Every structure is written in structure tokens, then in C-alpha cells.
């Protein structure tokens, strides 16, 4: 039996990663994720693992590439400007089909932006990370406990699909303290890592690469990647629905924003407004079916994000014009208040 302990999100993710068998961590300092590498620097060597502070995010992600190719469970973490630098490496990792877990504690951009919580990297995480036809699996926790649970799942998803997985949070998720429990979880059956480079002793040599000069090869490879992402769409969709049974309006929100929306919904319900929440937990694969289904029930949707409107595009695609989809955004590094959301909700319902 395991007891609950009070931990910061960043530290809890690090602990969950170590418990998931992560042996190698490469990173570069940036706020608001600094507690995560610090925890790794403290704990990983004690367990025979390796923590290394790289000279840049570019180097860190390429160390991840090497460590993953060598067969290790490996993680890196950063925040928005640093993720932009990792983008090149992430494209190579996806192209070479290597598993790894990347944490992005998003801060408001563009450029250096601010360090306040933000969801303005949704497009980057789910669609436009870097060049080429590839996707990351993207998991967005709304509590420290969920961050812990998803971290474990992230490593398994990465190994199952041989694809990078991103945990997308922000400074609130990373730095708030909540009681967490590290549950013992049985490992799912995962494919054998028979592709690693460790010196080809007594076996055929392995080659890890993303260069495919023959158009037939690259075409086939990209369709193979596309099938993986389709498979994720079948098997890896995660979401939460709250008070949707009788809802006339659905608010769609994820991560930190969804926590505030839950409070707003409680207040709205007290006033007799029939509103529910759809909270995507996996941003890729996006829970489009559940939103599509809700479009048959509710009169309208409201998407709330800490951005000028990114996930709302996926909500609109899923709703496909059947209902109106309104948007409320907070793009400057501030968490919207329940009161603001309530005002917007009433406006939408008019």
C-alpha cells in the first residue's frame, strides 16, 4: 500500500518517471520546470541512472536521441522557448521511430514572452512541432496526481508506438503542491527493443536513421507513421466528461483551465444553468468522437483556453458546423477566473 505525499508537479513527474524505469535525463534550465531536472539530478544517480545538464536544448534532445537509440527509457523537460529548440531533434526522433518522453511546462509566448501559465503551444505540440509528417502523442494533466499517472502511461505509449510522447502542462501544474499517490502498476506487454544500437555483439547490425532518399521508401515510411497515429486515435484517446448527462452547453477545456472551468460550472449549476465539461486529456489523439457525439445533444459549445484560440479549431472540426462554438481566451500568462468564464458562458447562451 502506498501513502499520499505532498509534492510539486514538476517533482512528482520526475519521481513518476524514475518509477516508470526512466534511467536517463538530459535537460537545460528554464522556468517554470526547474524543479524537475533538479529532482532528477538528486535522485537519478542514486539509482544508477544518469542526469546530465546539456549545453542547450538542442544538445539535450540529441542526447535523448542517442540514449533512446541505445535502448534506455529517457526523458527531457523544458518550457516553450526551449521546446522550440528541441523541435529539430524531435522531428529526427519521430522519423527514426525512437521512444522518449518530453515534458513541456508551457509559458506564454511568442518569443521570450512571459513565465506565466499558458496553453499557447497547443498547435506546436499537436500539429506543427517541426518539419515533416509526424505527430507526438500529447497528454495534458489537470492535477499533480494525473501528471503522475500520465507520466507512467507516457513511457508505455512511447515504447508501444516507438514515438515521442509529450506531457503538456504549465507553471501551475508544475509548481503547485498536491497530495499524490504512486500506484504500483503492472507493465503492459511491450514490443521487444530489438532495434537498439549497442554494438551488434553476436547479432545483425542495427542502423538508426531518418534519411530515406528513395521516394518509394519515404512514401512507405510516412504511411507507416500515419498508420501508427491512426492506431493511437483508436486506442489512446483519453478524456473526462463532467455533468454532461443533461447539459445544454458544453465547455471544452484542458489542463489548468479545466480546473477553473470546473469551479465555474459548479457556480453555473447553482444558478440552474445546465452546463457540462468535456476535458480532453490526450490532445493528440484528440477526443473528436466524444465532441461529435455531444454536438447531437447540446445547443452550443464554449472552448476556454489560455491562448488566443488553438484547440478551439479542433473542437470546431469535430463539431463540423452542427453547433456554434464560442471561444474565451487568456493569452498573457494569467489563469482566467471562474467569474470571467461565467460571464462568457451567459453571453454565449443568450
Amino acid at each position, binding site marked *: 500500500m502506498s501513502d499520499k505525499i505532498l509534492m510539486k508537479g514538476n517533482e512528482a513527474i520526475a519521481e513518476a518517471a524514475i518509477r516508470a524505469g526512466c534511467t*536517463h535525463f538530459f535537460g537545460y534550465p528554464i522556468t517554470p520546470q526547474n524543479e524537475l531536472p533538479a529532482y532528477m539530478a538528486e535522485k537519478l544517480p542514486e539509482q544508477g541512472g544518469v542526469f546530465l545538464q546539456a549545453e542547450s536544448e538542442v544538445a539535450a534532445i540529441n*542526447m535523448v536521441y542517442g540514449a533512446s537509440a541505445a535502448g534506455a527509457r529517457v526523458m527531457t523537460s523544458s518550457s516553450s522557448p526551449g521546446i522550440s529548440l528541441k523541435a529539430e531533434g524531435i522531428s529526427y526522433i519521430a522519423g527514426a521511430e525512437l521512444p522518449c518522453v518530453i515534458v513541456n511546462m508551457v509559458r506564454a509566448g511568442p518569443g521570450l514572452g512571459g513565465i506565466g501559465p499558458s496553453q499557447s503551444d497547443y498547435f506546436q505540440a499537436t500539429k506543427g512541432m517541426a518539419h515533416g509528417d509526424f505527430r507526438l502523442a500529447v497528454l495534458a494533466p489537470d492535477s499533480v496526481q494525473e501528471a503522475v499517472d500520465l507520466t507512467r502511461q507516457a513511457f508505455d505509449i512511447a515504447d508501444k508506438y516507438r514515438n515521442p510522447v509529450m506531457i503538456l502542462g504549465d507553471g501551475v501544474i508544475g509548481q503547485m503542491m498536491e497530495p499524490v499517490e504512486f500506484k504500483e502498476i503492472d507493465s503492459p506487454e511491450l514490443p521487444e527493443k530489438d532495434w537498439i544500437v549497442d554494438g551488434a*555483439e553476436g547479432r545483425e547490425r542495427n542502423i538508426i536513421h531518418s*534519411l530515406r532518399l528513395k521516394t518509394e521508401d519515404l512514401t512507405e515510411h510516412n504511411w507507416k507513421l500515419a498508420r501508427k497515429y491512426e492506431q493511437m486515435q483508436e486506442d489512446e484517446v483519453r478524456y473526462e466528461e463532467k455533468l454532461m448527462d443533461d447539459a445544454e452547453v458544453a465547455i471544452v477545456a484542458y489542463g489548468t483551465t479545466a480546473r477553473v472551468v470546473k469551479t465555474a460550472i459548479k457556480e453555473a449549476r447553482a444558478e440552474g444553468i445546465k452546463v457540462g465539461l468535456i476535458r480532453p486529456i490526450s490532445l493528440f489523439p484528440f477526443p473528436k468522437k466524444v465532441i461529435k457525439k455531444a454536438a447531437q445533444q447540446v445547443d452550443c459549445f464554449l472552448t476556454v483556453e489560455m491562448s488566443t484560440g488553438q484547440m478551439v479549431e479542433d473542437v470546431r472540426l469535430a463539431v463540423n458546423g452542427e453547433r456554434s462554438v464560442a471561444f474565451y481566451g487568456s493569452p498573457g500568462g494569467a489563469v482566467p477566473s471562474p467569474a470571467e468564464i461565467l460571464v462568457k458562458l451567459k453571453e454565449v447562451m443568450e
Partner: protein
Amino acid sequence: MEELAGRPKSLTEQEFHYCPGCTHGIVHRLVAEVIDELDIQEQTIGIAPVGCAVLAYDYFDLDMLEAAHGRPPAVATGIKRVHPDKVVFTYQGDGDYASIGTAESVHAASRGERITTVFINNAIYGMTGGQMAPTTLEGQKATTAPRGRDTKEAGFPLQMSEMLATLEGAVYVARVSVDTPQRIKQAKEAIKKAFKVQLKGLGYALVEVLSTCPTNWGLSPQQALDWLEDNMIPYYPLGELKSVGEVE
């Protein structure tokens, strides 16, 4: 009967794609011979660059990995930190090692990463068709320096080995050339030493190899060898810049 000039075991049967007179092929062979002689074929992981040698993973009969442009030292770091008992080497051109990847090169050396780098300095970007490299000599023509490298505009050719030899973590730094049989022999000795330094766990080892690119220099293979001797060696002097004595 002993075979004296067969293909090294650590090279595949694949024919090189390099241009006539290009010395990339000679260096591949030297690296493979060293790996054979040290009997480390089944312990070694090689990293190919982005550049003319990107297909090195087809030529070395080893576990191989292709890295993004300039990132091999970081990738090698990741591998070596997982398998400290294995041998990891990077093979990189001057654009890869001394321009886009300078930070990765300097810091891998500075950390004393126990890896070996074979750095091909041909004073030009080969793969992309003859643009100026950080190592392009003053006055040397390139497609992006059509009137020759003007140091007032484009700065000075980078002496990577001299720079890295100042770092504590770089324990073996040598510059060699493969333009004559005698120098090819010396080059092989340096490469062997750079692998032995790694096997001993002493620190970072670098061998810079002055190499030809007849295609983009606009010279015949023989003229290219002469040009290397007359122009590159005076600016990039040969020899061990930093050594650890005999490594056995």
C-alpha cells in the same frame, strides 16, 4: 596465405558513392582497419553526420546511427552514457563539426566525453555543392564566396583542433592528412590512438583529417592533393596538438 590488402571486416561490401579523388573513402578505410585491429567491431557504435558522409551507416559494418546536422557529439554522449563500456565514434565534416554543431563539439570535448571524433576538414561544403565552410581558406573560392573568402567580410578560417586542444576534457587532439602514403600511415596511427584513448576512458579524443574535395575545389584528383599540401597544411599544421604519451 595472409591477405594483405583485403577489405577490412568493419566495412560492408557496399561500394562508396564518393567522387573520384575524394579522400573520404581513405579515411573510412583507416577507421575500419583500426576497429578491426583493436578487435572492437562488436562493441562499436558509429555516428554518421549530415554531409557527404551521411551514408557512412551503409559503409561501416557496425551498429550505426545517423544524426542531425552537427549533432553527432550530443547523440554520441547519449549513447555513451547508456553504454559506458562500448566504443562510440562520430565521423563529421567541417560544416557539421565546426559550424552548425560547434556548441555540441566544444561541450562534448569540454565534458571530456569518452568518445572519439574523426573530423574531415576539406575546407568546403561538399554535399550541398561547394559553399564556404568555416574552414575555407582566405582567398579560397566557394559558390558563396565567389571572389574568394574575404576575411573582412567572412572572418577567418577556424582552427578547430587548436581551439579544442585548450580544453581540459579533450585529452587527445591530432591533425593529420591523407594526401601521401606516408601521411596516410600517420593518420591511421593517430586514429588508432584516439580509439585507444577512449578504450582507456581517458577523455575526449579528436583527429582532424585534412581531406580533398576535388569536385567542389574544381581540381583534378592529383591537383587537389597538391592544393591540399600547398595551401591547407601551412594554415592547418599537422601533428599531435595534445597527447597523453603512449596509450596501450
